[in-house]
């Protein structure tokens, strides 16, 4: 189930989507589940 504000990407074609309203569905692309892509927090002010 997608989470609010998270990005998901397709391992096959590289498409990225951003969830701005979560629901109960699953994200699929190129006949596969899309994978969570996490930000790598920057230890700074910006």
């Amino acid at each position, binding site marked *: 189930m997608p989470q609010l*504000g*998270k990005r998901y990407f397709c391992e096959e074609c590289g498409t990225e989507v*951003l969830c701005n309203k979560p629901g109960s569905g699953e994200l699929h692309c190129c006949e596969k589940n899309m994978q969570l892509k996490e930000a790598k927090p920057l*230890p700074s002010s*910006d």
Partner: protein
Amino acid sequence: MNTANFLSIPGSMFPEQEILVFEGTRLTYGDVLERVRRLASSLRQLGVQPGDRVAALQTNSHQYIEAYYATATLGATFVPLNYRAKLPELEYMVTAASVKVLFVGARYADSVRQLRPKFPSVQHYIAMESRQPDMLYYEDLVASGSPDIEDAEVDEGDVSILMYTSGTTSLPKGVMLTYGDFTNYVVGTVEMADGTPRGVSLLCAPLYHIAGTANIMTALWAGRKIVVLRQFDPKEWLETVQKEQVTHAFVVPTMMKQLIDHPDFSRYDLSSLQNLSYGGAPMPFPVIRKAIEMFPKTTGFVNAFGQTETTSTLTVLGPEDHRLDGPPEEVERNLKRLTSVGKPLPDVEVRVLDEENRDLPPNEIGEIVIRTPRVMKGYAGQESATAALLDPDGWLHTRDMGYVDEDGYIYLVGRKDDIIIRGGENIAPAEIEAVLHAHPAVDEAAVIGVPDVDWGQKIAAFVALRPGQSTTAEELIEFCRQRLASFKKPELIRFVDALPKNPLGKILKKELRAQFTE
């Protein structure tokens, strides 16, 4: 992604969350989003189309930030102008960028009036702080615009910000940063707001600098409240950290020194400050060492190195490398690392190349060359200058000389083309030399940066006079002050019989620099 989404998505989801504070004004996400959309509607009514250039000449304010997001809402290009620039520099930037709409702060209204006949492309002037008789008024446009407007569809390669920076030539270069560049930076480095408190960020870097802009974009996306200072002032900075419980801040080395030198430093409660980043210029070692001693032990220091051309930060030296209270061997290691700019961010590749573009082994000095998905599109209208730095396969020659140690930490040793960085401001010696050369008594002149504990570097000029001519250092400094932004005027003048040159007649600045390091 349109960078306007960095406001509109969290702004639609958490409209009640306080997100922007400036002097007496406190705004929620909902307030900011509505003001931005109303302003965008009015700008569209004025004829602003995708790709048009919208500039601002003003110190930091919440309106300035709104003006950027309104511009992005329309898919247009924002041009933040250096408010310290002198009139000829402003004239160059506004005309080179073909600015269509110009936002003007009250203190710059008279300067802009003088230049109006020289700005044929500018169709509308918008007074930002107070009404001006010959300009539209910002708050009228906000009040009269409709909030019903959607963020424009943009391509990743469309230019979102055209940011002028000093180059090696005498004219500023317009760095084209795209919607895609900022998207890569923002979504790659912070998680989106989720309605929970994400801290308070203090903005004191000017918004015409990449550090200020990057700070705004990430904080708005992450849900971190932004407290805006009009301009940096050490006492106000300390007061604001205490009053607003600031958790994150960015300063340039000159600001850091002014903070730790402030006589009332110890009277303020700075315990909320979790993260204090610095960058923009080389940090003098005595300053960071003293800062680590003076700020609360819970404050983590971060050295962030980046460029306008790379959409902000490339490498960071994190808090753990700033700790000076561990075992002696760790302290010794970290004291050396305090002179490093740290390690590359995950989306940055770094190489150190020699003059023939061959990779150098650890600890050998060469040019730092980087690749990241957020390298600039190029310099506006300067294809050859772009091609000189940006390889077809995406590697950017930073013109910074340095080396990587065996642990992967990067150390900078100077600029390949002698740019002077004074208090975070990039200054091209060629621009000052050109002014000195215009003085009737001057035969030749060379300008270099010399180490300075207050400003990182200060500007020194070597001058040889024409036979039979005379002048004074004071007169030459005043001559420059009248023709350049004040921070670009030389602070030291040395008169010499002739400048040292190589057989081809190129001035040997290395020999000039040696006179200050001996």
